[in-house]
């Protein structure tokens, strides 16, 4: 990579190509409808998008470790429900938040245990827990209506701002920063990439693969729980079908951001960009009076576009790098050949012509 140009080096970082696409999308929407970047709309759309983006980060972490987590959406919904359930029954702020995050964490640990230690296919395990979480939320809403609570400080999680920056954005920013530091700078993070690239090689290298897998699912569950708490705070009431279909957006966001499903590559930024791209798309379409039913089609097309785009960018980078190196080696070969020829000519100066 050292021989490649600065642009190619930037573009080969996961998430960077999509960053440019995101900027272009924002500019286009802003030109179509100048309300798009108004302070109030912007704050609103960012606050709305943050739970989805946190879920996207969770899925992205699991994907980096070579797995998949389909349960994140409904687990976030259930966590929101559990938080409200705690508040309805008189829990203080901290307890409610802990209950929400804890619900997510428990689901993450169960997923992780089944996948990592019993080695059951992650797709099936999380499909099953998706349904279990969705079902539990339905049951929970039938036990008690999950609304009408007045816990001081809870709505402020999403409805206040600090120096003009929405509080939830600060929370999300801190989470993404921590996640990126863990991924890039800690042993656990590096092991996650190792497991994602090749679990066998990681195992041979002395990494406890099940432990790393378990931790990735636990992180995903915890993030889904946090997303659920923020969802509950923003909505103020939890309905039975909250969170269904979020996994679709989250996985799409991770893939669009440039996290390859094969595992072993990606970063927190890619998840952030991919998630924000879909949220922006949704908001932009809404502002331009496009029927929301088109969104699932747009998401579907965005997945295909994202994967193909990412791969195309990578292919171009690889090709230019190859051309560069081959040009370099050609050059070297020709200079070597020329010097050899001149040396040969020098040595044969005294002899007779060979040709």
């Amino acid at each position, binding site marked *: 990579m050292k021989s490649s140009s600065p642009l190619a080096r930037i573009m080969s970082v996961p998430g960077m190509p999509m960053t440019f696409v995101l900027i272009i999308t924002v500019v286009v929407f802003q030109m179509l409808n100048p309300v798009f970047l108004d302070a109030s709309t912007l704050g609103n759309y960012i606050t709305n998008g943050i739970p989805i983006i946190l879920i996207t980060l969770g899925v992205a972490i699991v994907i980096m470790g070579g797995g998949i987590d389909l349960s994140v959406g409904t687990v976030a919904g259930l966590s929101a429900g559990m938080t409200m359930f705690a508040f309805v029954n008189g829990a203080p702020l901290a307890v409610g938040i802990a209950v929400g995050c804890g619900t997510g964490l428990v689901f993450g640990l169960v997923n992780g245990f089944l996948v990592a230690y019993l*080695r059951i296919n992650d797709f*099936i395990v999380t499909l099953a827990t998706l349904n279990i979480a969705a079902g539990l939320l339905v049951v929970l809403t*039938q036990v008690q209506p999950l609304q009408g609570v007045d816990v001081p400080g809870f709505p402020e999680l999403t409805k206040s701002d600090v120096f003009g920056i929405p509080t939830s954005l600060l929370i999300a920013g801190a989470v993404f920063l921590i996640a990126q530091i863990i991924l890039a700078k800690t042993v656990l993070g590096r092991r996650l990439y190792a497991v994602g690239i090749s679990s066998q090689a990681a195992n041979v290298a002395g990494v406890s693969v099940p432990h790393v897998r378990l931790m990735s699912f636990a992180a995903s569950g915890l993030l889904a729980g946090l997303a659920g708490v923020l969802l509950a705070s923003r909505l103020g009431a939890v309905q039975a079908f909250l969170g269904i279909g979020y996994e679709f957006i989250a996985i799409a966001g991770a893939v669009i951001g440039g996290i390859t499903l094969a595992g072993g590559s990606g970063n927190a930024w890619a998840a952030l960009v991919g998630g924000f791209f879909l949220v922006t798309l949704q908001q932009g379409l809404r502002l331009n009076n496009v029927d929301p039913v088109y969104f699932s*089609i747009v998401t*579907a097309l965005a*997945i295909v576009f994202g*994967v193909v785009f990412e791969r195309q960018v990578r292919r171009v980078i690889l090709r230019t790098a190859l051309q560069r190196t081959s040009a370099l080696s050609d050059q070297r070969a020709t200079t070597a050949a020329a010097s050899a020829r001149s040396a040969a000519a020098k040595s044969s100066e005294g002899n007779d012509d060979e040709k």
Partner: protein
Amino acid sequence: MMKSRTLDIATVSRNAWERLVVDPTLGVISLLVIFSLIAAFAFPVFYAGNNIYNLVGSSITVMILAIGMTIVLISGGIDLSVGAVMALCAGTAASVVKLGAPLWVAFLCALLVGVIAGLMNGFLVTRVGLPDFIGTLAMLGLASGVLYIATQGVPIIGYMTSEYYVIGGLEPLVGPVTLPMVVALVLALSAGWLLSRTRLGTHFFAVGSNAVAARQSGVSVRWVKTQAYVISGVCAAIAGVILAGRNNNVPADLGTGYEIQAISAAIIGGASLMGGRGRVLGAVLGSLTLALAINIINLAGVPSSFQKIVIGAILLLAVIANYLSELARNAALRRRAKRDSQASSLERTKKEI
């Protein structure tokens, strides 16, 4: 191919218990029997009136989807779009009937939509190179989005002709037998024949067990996988036509949740997500098991909101049972290898003597 993969231990093992534990189809049969016994003892209503008859009727849609899903799973893929495609086909059939076209035209249109969806899945997975579940997840979004836009969220009604009551299974065909039952039987038999007796069937197993080896043996992996998705699309279309009749209306979210039921039925029936393993009989019995479990919880008076939890739990139980069965299979193989080596060493010593 199939026999050598699924029956390797079952055929060589003389121990009946070992055979029961390692053969997935026998496992699901025993699950079915245990569930029925529980139902019979706990709820006398189970065998009363039309309960079992209704139970079989209600399992048909999932059964047809699960047959297609099994073929996709065998070829090493997964089709998440079956529910959405089924709903789209149901919507197509219903709207074409509503336009006044004859029934066969409506069914051809629905079938066409199913085939196109299957081809698109195959294209996304084998040509664009998306992972199976991402490609079909995109197809899910696409198909459900199209149906939402076409219906604007209002259920399609007013297409139920008298023939359609027979097609949906609301009116029996001959005696107690309904048309969907006949369709499901024919589909199951032809899928079983396809898998065990034709070249394409062998190719499905080959591609699912080891795509690289299959390609090196001259099998067109891309085309075989595309065909698996087309078969799944056709099954979704047939299920959609039937469900439109059974349901009396086609809401935009008709297919939601059917993909998990179809996958669950196929997995319970012994199909493996790693590809190369699965049985049509297993899919049929798996869908019956699911319907039976839902029936039992209904009889027990558990609110229907628990249905999702139960389906999820059964799916988890099924994969854990598969895991245990895999352990048992490996243990049996090891025992057998040990016995063989002992026997051969015994023979060697005999010869030496």
